[in-house]
């Protein structure tokens, strides 16, 4: 608290001094200094590291250039809740936090740790986003968050070289994927999948895609909302379907015991760097580590939509929601900027990015592939669903070594008992 007070007082002093200097010198600020937020210091916390962090910092840099504020980014690591929890408890939260789960928005809103969107930030959200996205960042009547980065989670990435060698094409149904595509790849001596089992969230994504397609959007919502028991037949059925791939040691690089030790993005490296496998399932953001592993996205790193298990292929999305955690000067301006089409166009140029803002045009993206992805999210219409594990409380859906992550990791290690696994999920699921 005291530090904040000091900060803002310091900021005023610096701003006043800046004003004096500005008035004393020639009118119009220099190329970098000045701006209406000159001297304001802001902190943003998010989970991005590496290439993703660089992309976001480019956006922050353009905000700094435009307003004169200085924004520092701190990475929360994979466990955003564990990073922010103590900071909120101590009354020292970052000014803006980028939350990877809507579940956290609810949680923090209940703790009164969030500041609702105001002014330009609120208008931007109203005007440039669809209702679906706005509801995602709202708790009750208050709107707290804006989805600044969307992720398409219904993709299977593959190495075209491997597909050519085996003479297979991208499958359209689950059966084609497990029989023809994977079978032929195995015959050609190529391991079909690289699994990212050590990163539990990739396994929940597998589950969600199969479940959404197999059981349908309605059951999906009921399961997410706690109205459907995890021991329901549909859950067991989905686990059985998953076992068609997970139960075959030969299907994945390193077998099952190797797969549960492989984290994301190491599994991407297995496909594109080491060329140990042909396919890896995960969202659009695979493009960044794939490029890092030496592949050219769109040429030798291509994705096909997750095949239909039931009638319709699934479209699961996720996204990062920016929220204000303090009432300091510049916070709402930063959020308004992050939500704007301008900022997101800058971000789009960096690659590995999808926007949910309806006004970000397709040509903002650097490649045709990303343009198509953006289009599929807009086109999928009412059947789009938000990542289920991010909608449930994070103790169940997003905690290392517990809940869905741990149970599905156990299931990957030994997929022989789908009913037992469903039972475990039911026991771990929060009561509602």
């Amino acid at each position, binding site marked *: 608290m005291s530090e904040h007070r000091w900060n803002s007082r310091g900021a005023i002093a610096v701003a006043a001094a800046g004003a004096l200097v500005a008035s004393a010198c020639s009118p119009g600020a220099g190329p970098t200094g000045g701006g209406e937020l000159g001297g304001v210091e802001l902190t943003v916390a998010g989970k991005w590291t590496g290439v993703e962090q660089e992309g976001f910092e480019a956006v922050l840099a353009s905000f700094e250039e435009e307003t004169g504020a200085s924004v520092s980014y701190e990475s929360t690591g994979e466990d955003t809740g564990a990073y922010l*929890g103590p900071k909120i408890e101590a009354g020292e939260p970052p000014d803006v936090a980028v939350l990877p789960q809507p579940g956290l928005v609810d949680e923090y809103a209940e703790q009164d740790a969030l500041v609702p969107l105001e002014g330009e930030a609120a208008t931007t959200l109203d005007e440039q986003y669809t209702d679906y996205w706005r509801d995602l960042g709202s708790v009750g009547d208050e709107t707290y968050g804006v989805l600044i980065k969307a992720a398409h989670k219904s993709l299977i990435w593959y190495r075209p070289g491997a597909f050519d060698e085996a*003479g297979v094409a991208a499958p359209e149904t689950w059966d084609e994927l497990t029989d023809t595509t994977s079978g032929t790849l195995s*015959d050609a*001596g190529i391991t079909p999948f690289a699994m990212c089992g050590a990163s539990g969230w990739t396994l929940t994504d597998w589950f969600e895609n199969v479940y959404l397609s197999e059981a349908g959007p309605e059951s999906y919502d009921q399961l997410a909302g706690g109205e459907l028991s995890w021991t329901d037949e549909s859950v067991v059925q989905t686990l059985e379907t998953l076992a068609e791939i997970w139960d075959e040691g*030969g299907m994945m690089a390193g077998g099952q015991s190797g797969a549960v030790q492989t*984290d994301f993005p190491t599994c991407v490296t297995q496909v594109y760097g080491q060329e140990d496998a042909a396919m890896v399932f995960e969202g659009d953001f695979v493009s960044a580590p794939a490029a890092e592993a030496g592949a050219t996205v769109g040429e030798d790193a291509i994705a096909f939509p997750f095949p239909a298990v039931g009638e319709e292929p699934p479209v699961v999305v996720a996204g990062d929601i920016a929220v204000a955690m303090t009432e300091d000067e510049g916070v709402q301006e930063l959020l308004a900027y992050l939500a704007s089409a301008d900022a997101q166009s800058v971000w789009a140029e960096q690659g590995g990015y999808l926007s949910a803002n309806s006004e970000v045009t397709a040509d903002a993206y650097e490649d045709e592939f990303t343009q198509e992805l953006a289009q599929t999210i807009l086109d999928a219409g009412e059947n789009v669903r938000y990542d289920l594990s991010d909608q449930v409380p*994070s103790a169940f859906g997003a905690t*290392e070594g517990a809940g869905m992550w*741990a149970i599905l990791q156990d299931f*990957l290690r030994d997929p022989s008992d789908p009913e037992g696994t469903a039972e475990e999920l039911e026991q771990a699921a929060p009561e509602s």
Partner: protein
Amino acid sequence: MTETGGTTPPATPDASEGAAAGDGTTAPGGTGRLGPPSWLALVFLLPALLFLGAYLVYPILFSAYRSLWDASGTEFVGLDNYLKMFTTPSTFVALRNNVIWVVVAPIVVTIAGLIFAVLTERIRWSTAFKIVIFMPMAISFLASGVIFRLVYEQDPERGLANAVITTVQDTVSAAAAYPDANPRPGAPLAEASGGGYESTEEVSPGETVFLPLVGVQADELPEGAEPAAEAAVGGQDELTGTVWLDFTRGGGGEEGAMDPEELGLPGLEVQAVRDGEVVATAFTENDGTFLLEDVGGGQYTIRLAADNFTEPYRGVTWLGPTLITPAIIGAYLWVWAGFAMVLIAAGLAAIPREALEAARVDGATEWQVFRRVTVPLLSPVLLVVFVTLMIYVLKIFDLVLVIAPGSVQADANVLALQMWRVSFGGGNDQGMGSALAVFLLVLVVPAMIFQIRRFRQESQ
């Protein structure tokens, strides 16, 4: 706590003496205490006392108080958190692992330190050796954890431990050429009882068999592999055939047929089996053909020997659920062996040489000297090292957090990690977290009391 406890008692008798001496005028030759009065010492101690109070005593008391409240801290729940703690299975796993840690780690580290200390006494470059052993102490636990996470990777191309193991294994017994190969579905081949594959139909001499296999990448075939050729029909006491890779690059080949681009599988061991006995053995040529000679009349099964398909040894699953705790203790040993060695070496230097000489003169062997003289004389130092390590081991946290992949973190769990997870990771239940913290404190207290007693005894 320890410091205040240690310093206050001796200060009290001094105080009365000091007061007595202060009353009298200069007492020449008296036992009056020199130096400033004791209240001044208290003044100088005050900052330390305040500091300890604010950062040690208050947090302990607050944790104990907080552990009686619920997750949000608004509702008093009494001992519920403690009850819940002892009925949660994950706490038991953590407790069990802590017990393993406390029993194994201090013993292993102390023994390693003792061995290093004794051995370094005997070698010429002992200082250099000691520096190397001690160096890991200078690396933070987090960095050590990252290093060992890499060392323990399953893939021998990435993990050092498995790279060493598989290299040794490969020199002892070379890997098979076709570990992943399997029969083309529909081919007249079935898995043999002792491993490998055998033909489903029996053949008699003079006949030719064609055995299609798949599952091998064309790039990985041994050098010199040639397009598959149909084996010529052999003589009266010969069996011939071809084993080939029935997969055309890029697809499109006809299943079970030798398409022009398909290659033979060279160097494959082929056996002719009659009544379960191997009658003849041959190896395939570069074009996949083989010739089994000197077989008598009768019916044979053709077997592709199990040796061809032995899975390569993949090394040890260090980061799997069973080995994870021993693996992390290994990393702990790497970090702490230097600490134990330096302390024990210091103790060793203080041992009277005469005792050792006397034992040797009396005809004791080196082992007897070590066992009956060195170790007993060192036992106070060994105990200090052991107990210190025990205290450190009880609160082990960072190595477990960094080395254990998410998928086995539940299996590698320890109390300190459980405390952190419950308080800040996901659950955000700081009531329960405080209860765990208090429990951990209770476990550390006996070791602390023991340590303090030892210090007291030594100072007397």
